[in-house]
């Protein structure tokens, strides 16, 4: 081989060497960006704020310095700046600023996240005024002139309508030498996820991405969701903690790579356990590569709604402008291209109002497709048979609850209303209404959520056990009791109704087990406990 050829070989290898070194350097710099904490960058625009607030509110500045925002020079003014004339703006040290940072402010940089979030259930969490929950908070637990239960309870998760103190002419009242607008203390501070902001945006990014450090690990941690998704009516965090997933998470938190910047991908960055974010909104690996998730639309993968009296499967209708509606499977789906009169809730003059907007259907996602996206996450650890069988178990539980308890109970309640026993304007006048409410809203949800997230105790003891106990021992007697208030004949009608119900096969056990079943039961207690 002559030297000229060899010279070309050396040149080619040297070139490949250089390319390799550049590839290594690129990867290295990416890795170092993740592992090394970048220094906070205080731009000239933000220097004044940082200098004063380092004394006025030092911990706040320290938290900001700890953030990725600081590392990239995104500071106070970048998020808090406002325009002159905006209701929440005031001139502060030469800059118009606002204490309220809304999703629209965040959208200046995080446009995709804003768009995804705006389509989500979370963004609509503040639209709860027309709900029984709200009646309970404002009426049952509240009193005229004092809405403190809603303010301190419901709104801190669901979000408030931000209102301002106004004079008789409707002008905002201001305070201090800088004429800072005074926000109605009932409505702010508030970091509810469906907060209704003066600029028309819905939500508060701070609900999940706590200021001012905005750490990714916080929003990926189950405790973050647990602030709201807990308690007697939707104990998701308690169920998660009970589940194998939760146990694996807490034991292996150090292997969860919660600090990963950018996409946090199951099967690539971590494997120890799924969190709420993993299953509902995060990216994951598939045999065909990475599935990059719609990271801020939390309901996207949910196939059942477990919230109403009777659960339904959920299809999605997505319109040309990105507006999205859930269609229960019992509701007829439109065709793509149809124009539908949609109802949207917006804030006008600091009040939530409904308006009808004609929209054209762009896309329909069926409940099966939504479930398939969820299954993709499951398949990172489980076989398809395992996942399919899990969904079969879950579906069976929801159907059991629906058919045995929810549907009969609802039918009876509807009849009581039709017979004039119950006043449609008084949802909590009688004992039966409270029992019925808790039957589906508390116990029924616990059972369904328990099954959806593999929490056996919540499915049974906190769920179906409570549902059945209260159905037989509280609800049915309360039905007869309330019917009797409308006369003996009405009472007899509902006694008979209950008798007929209990005569159905699934309820006959109340009158007695079979001889064999009863004997087996006695023997078990005798053998095990000598009782």
């Amino acid at each position, binding site marked *: 081989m002559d*030297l000229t050829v060899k010279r070309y070989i050396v040149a080619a*290898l040297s070139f490949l*060497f250089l390319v390799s070194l550049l590839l*290594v350097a690129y*990867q290295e710099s990416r*890795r170092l960006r993740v*592992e*090394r904490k970048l220094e906070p960058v205080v731009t000239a625009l933000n220097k004044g704020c940082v200098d004063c607030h380092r004394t006025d509110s030092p911990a706040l500045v320290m938290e900001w310095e700890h953030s990725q925002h600081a590392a990239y020079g995104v500071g106070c003014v970048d998020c808090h700046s406002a325009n002159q004339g905006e209701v929440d703006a005031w001139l502060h040290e030469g800059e118009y600023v606002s204490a309220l940072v809304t999703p629209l402010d965040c959208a200046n940089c995080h446009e995709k996240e804003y768009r995804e979030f705006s389509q989500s259930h979370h963004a609509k969490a503040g639209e709860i005024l027309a709900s029984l929950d709200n009646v309970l908070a404002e009426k049952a637990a509240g009193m005229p002139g004092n809405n403190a239960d809603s303010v301190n309870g419901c709104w801190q998760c669901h979000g408030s309508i931000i209102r301002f103190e106004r004079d008789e002419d409707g002008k905002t009242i201001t305070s201090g030498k800088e004429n800072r607008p005074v926000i109605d203390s009932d409505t702010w501070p508030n970091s509810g996820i469906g907060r209704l902001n003066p600029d028309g945006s819905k939500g508060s990014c701070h609900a999940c991405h706590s200021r001012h450090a905005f750490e990714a690990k916080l929003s990926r941690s189950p405790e973050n969701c647990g602030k709201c998704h807990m308690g007697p009516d939707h104990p998701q965090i308690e169920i998660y903690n009970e589940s194998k997933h939760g146990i694996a998470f807490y034991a292996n938190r150090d292997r969860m790579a919660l600090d990963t910047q950018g996409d946090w991908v199951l099967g690539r960055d971590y494997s120890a356990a799924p969190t709420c974010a993993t299953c509902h909104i995060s990216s994951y690996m598939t045999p065909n590569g990475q599935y990059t998730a719609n990271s801020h639309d939390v309901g996207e993968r949910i196939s059942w709604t477990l919230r109403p009296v009777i659960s339904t499967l959920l299809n999605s209708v997505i319109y040309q402008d990105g507006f999205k509606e859930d269609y229960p499977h019992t509701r007829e789906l439109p065709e793509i291209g149809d124009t539908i009169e949609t109802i949207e809730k917006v804030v006008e003059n600091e009040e939530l109002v409904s308006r009808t907007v004609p929209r054209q259907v762009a896309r329909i996602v069926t409940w099966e497709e939504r479930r398939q996206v969820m299954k993709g996450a499951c398949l990172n650890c489980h076989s398809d048979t395992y996942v399919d069988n899990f969904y079969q178990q879950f579906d069976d539980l929801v159907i059991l609850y629906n058919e045995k308890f929810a549907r009969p109970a609802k039918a009876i309640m509807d009849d009581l209303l039709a017979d004039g026993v119950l006043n449609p304007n008084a949802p909590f006048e009688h004992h039966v209404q409270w029992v019925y409410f808790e039957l589906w809203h508390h116990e029924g949800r616990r059972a369904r959520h328990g099954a959806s997230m593999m929490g056996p105790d919540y499915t049974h003891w906190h769920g179906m056990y409570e549902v059945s106990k209260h159905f037989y021992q509280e609800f049915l007697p309360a039905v007869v009791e309330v019917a009797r208030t409308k006369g003996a004949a009405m009472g007899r009608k509902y006694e008979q109704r209950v008798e007929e119900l209990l005569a159905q096969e699934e309820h006959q056990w109340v009158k007695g087990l079979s001889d064999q079943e009863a004997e087996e039961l006695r023997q078990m207690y005798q053998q095990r406990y000598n009782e």
Partner: protein
Amino acid sequence: MADFQEQQTPQAGFFQRVSELIPFDWELIRHASAEPVPYHIKKWWFCLGGTVLYLFVIQVATGIALTFYYVPSPDQAYESVAQITQDVRFGWYIRSLHKWAANCMIVAMFLHMLRVYFTGAYRHPRQLNWCIGFLLLGITLTFGFTGYSLVYEQLSFWGATVGANLAEAVPLIGPTIAYFLRGGPEVGENTLTRFYVLHIGLLPTLAFGLVFLHILLIRLHGVTELEFEGKEVPEKERHFRFWPDHATTELLIGVLLMYLLTIMALVFPAGLGEPANPTQTPEHIKPEWYFYFNFRLLKLTSLRVSVVFTMALGGICFLWPFIEQWLSRKFKVPDRVWVMLGVLAFLGFLVLTVWESFVQ
């Protein structure tokens, strides 16, 4: 009159007197520096050996400067590096030069070896010089390993720990070497001192000796004469003088290298990670890039297999001129086979290196 003339040219008298003070055969120097250099050396890619030497000189100079401020003690090492980087005048520049010259030195060394291998310049009678060169590669990589550990940041500390574990896996003598490197059974207070002594004492001494031998052998053998086909060169143009012709070329390369290193230092100054924390293992441990191929091998096989494989590979490379000579004679292997083998070996090295960089 003659006395007067001598007084008029005091310089001649000065050099005369100095040469009398050092009774050396200055003619020998003149002879040595006038070595005829083959014409192909005018091409820059034949000057990579000189580039390595130039970078080595930079390492010595910047290394000595850093030694004035560096404190080789576990509780002060990181702080002293931070002080060099942040407080000492030009400290960041000297440190960045040291870092980038080290990386460039390894790159230039690989390129030099590529050139020597593919042009067959290691063949008889220059086999020994290949062996010395290969030892210099080993010493330079050890320089890199020990120097990186001296920074005493989290990643470099744990890199040293992994390095010591690798050494332990060497058959028979591994545990002794590891114990010697660590200064005890675990990485501890003595480890940093040992790495420091290796980095500024033992390794430079060895390097100076071997570089001297390397150059001496080049001078004694003369540079390999290469013929490029189709390029007839008249006899009088086949050689040029080392001094000042080739020395000027090397000087020019030196200036360009200083430009390059200064730009690297300005754009990518040597940074500093988290301080070493012996109680907390970082999520990802990575050595410097030139050990990536070995790290990948380790992950693909096992600690013991990768260490033994690397040693065997190193042994083969070290003795390659003799092995190749023996194989060529015994099996009549044509030259192109060795070229292909070289291409495959180097591509293998590159693939493993890049592969490792993509693995978290």
